[in-house]
């Protein structure tokens, strides 16, 4: 199968998946709650008039299938309803909050992926030596820790008891955010040449992004280690040695490239875990992103915002996976590109 055919096929496969996602979110919002109108109105304490109005707005008296088409129609017009907490359309809130989350996840990836891969390689090469044991223990702790607890502990230790890092937020109090070009403070600061905001935003990123990326790093470390060990037992590694290559070249060239293939896939999937983790991390570090928005919405029974957030994250995640899949085909020549 040719590359373009594969891309077209993947794009076409996107359609049923996206339709499926809308069905799931529809079921969650319209079928699962005991009374969707009450849920959307913000719980049982809502005014009966509000509930009645919402019932009308969402066509809740129509048959389910009709409701679904109304729902789909709304989604196609990017109408995710109104956020009751912030009294404005959900889409508006999320577009405002998205860059902060994006910046945080990207930094978390930038920390966790190289560290994880490097740690995994070291661990595999120095198998059963001290450095292997230490990295393995860090790894297993990493995915055994609740992210919100880790965040609290780090915050308490590094920002309160020994205040070397900022407590919360994206910028120090008193600083004005750089002119918004991309919405990412770091990049905006560079573009506008504002050193103050650049250093402040980087400084504020350290703790949240490390917390968010820690579990991912641990997972990648473990993956890289085990796939390195597996690859190093393969015949072609023996062949490489038989050729007379030095151990360094054997490992860095022949083994590593094969070992990284599964790691890359997992890194892509971890993007979703990071988006989920952002809900917890952001609310602790008071990071003004869509994760904190979602957490507030859950606490405030703002159902519309929760659902809007869910569907937008799902779409982002689906696209991220598509990109990883395409990348995968570039790295591994064996991928017969979807042929069966």
């Amino acid at each position, binding site marked *: 199968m040719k590359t373009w055919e594969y891309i077209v096929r993947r794009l076409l496969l996107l359609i049923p998946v996206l339709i499926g*996602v809308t069905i799931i979110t529809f079921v969650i919002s319209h079928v699962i709650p005991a009374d969707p109108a009450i849920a959307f109105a913000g719980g049982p304490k809502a005014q009966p008039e509000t509930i009645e109005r919402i019932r009308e707005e969402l066509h809740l008296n129509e048959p389910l299938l009709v409701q679904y088409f109304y729902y789909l129609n709304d989604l196609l017009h990017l109408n995710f309803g109104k956020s009751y907490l912030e009294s404005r359309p959900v889409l508006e809130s999320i577009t405002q909050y998205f860059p902060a989350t994006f910046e945080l996840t990207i930094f978390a990836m930038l920390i966790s992926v190289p560290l994880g891969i490097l740690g995994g390689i070291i661990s595999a090469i120095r198998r059963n030596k001290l450095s292997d044991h230490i990295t393995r223990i860090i790894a297993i702790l990493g995915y055994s820790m609740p992210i919100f607890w880790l965040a609290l502990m780090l915050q308490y230790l590094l920002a309160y008891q020994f205040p070397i890092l900022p407590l919360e937020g994206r910028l120090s109090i008193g600083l004005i955010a750089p002119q918004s070009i991309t919405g990412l403070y770091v990049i905006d600061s560079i573009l506008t040449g504002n050193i103050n905001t650049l250093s402040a935003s980087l400084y504020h990123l350290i703790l949240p992004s490390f917390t968010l990326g820690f579990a991912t790093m641990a997972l990648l470390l473990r993956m890289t280690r085990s796939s390195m060990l597996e690859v190093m037992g393969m015949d072609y590694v023996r062949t490489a040695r038989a050729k007379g290559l030095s151990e360094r070249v054997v490992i860095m060239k022949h083994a590593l490239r094969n070992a990284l293939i599964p790691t890359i896939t997992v890194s892509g999937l971890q993007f979703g875990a990071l988006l*989920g983790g952002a809900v917890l991390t952001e609310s602790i570090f008071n990071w003004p992103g869509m994760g904190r928005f979602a957490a507030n919405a859950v606490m405030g029974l703002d159902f519309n915002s929760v659902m809007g957030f869910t569907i937008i994250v799902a779409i982002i995640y689906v696209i991220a996976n598509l990109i990883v899949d395409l990348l995968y085909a570039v790295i591994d020549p064996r991928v017969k590109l979807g042929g069966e």
Partner: protein
Amino acid sequence: MLHLFRRSLLSMIGLILILFIIFIAIFAPYLAIQHPTYVEVSTEQGTRRIEERWDINFQDKFIPPNSEHYFGTDDFGRDIYSMVIYGTQISLKICLMVVFSATIIGIILGGIAGYFGGKIDEILMRVTDVFLSIPYLILAIAVAAALGRSIENIMMALVLVWWPQYARLLRGQVLSIRENQYVEAARSIGANNWRILFRHVIPNSFAPLLVQITLDLGAVLLVAAGLSFIGLGAPPGTAEWGLMISSGRMHMFHSWWYATFPGLAIVITVLGFNLLGDGIRDITDPKLRR
């Protein structure tokens, strides 16, 4: 079986940790200092349910850890040590129930899809594709939010989120085991499909499933605690670890012990499951045994 664990120190530690947690859960009434009472309340939806109540004593609030209150007390003067002890019961209940139900659904659907293939397989795989294309924590949040706040609803949400993984895993296993010649041999001696599926295929796909189950017990606990943390799980005042961290968070800077000890309990339990899962993987996967 036990002698295999002895080979790996870490998995041995995992096994001991888990046995320790189970021990605490069983003997909680004897280990704790304070005890909850259970009352029946009516919910917002009009149904009734049992709720856990702990004695409130405002004179004793925010006592740091000492010889009487090993882990200190919280903002209502409740003993954190006792609440952590009782928390093992809720946590184990959540992870066991969720993983068990998800596994059953996964085995049945994944087994059938993998074995029979064709249209059923196609449909199931598309459905799991969709489920897996939403980050699981976020999907669980949405479902739990729709269901309303309670531990049962959290469990339901988690089962709904978790089964596709098992269906996938088992389907993959079945596909590879189906290639084994003993399956063909069974067919040639006249065994019918159900016998082959349940006697020959599924029992042999259990080893990797067992690893996944053990690791997932920890993962489910983490997600459940996360849901409780943002206010979707147990009603306030319940001895649930995630919830305790959530309420302790407000008082972090003057009473560090409030959020720390429930968190440690989570870490120990999850660590136990992960170490154990790794150990089982090493034992059952001959490739890594080298």
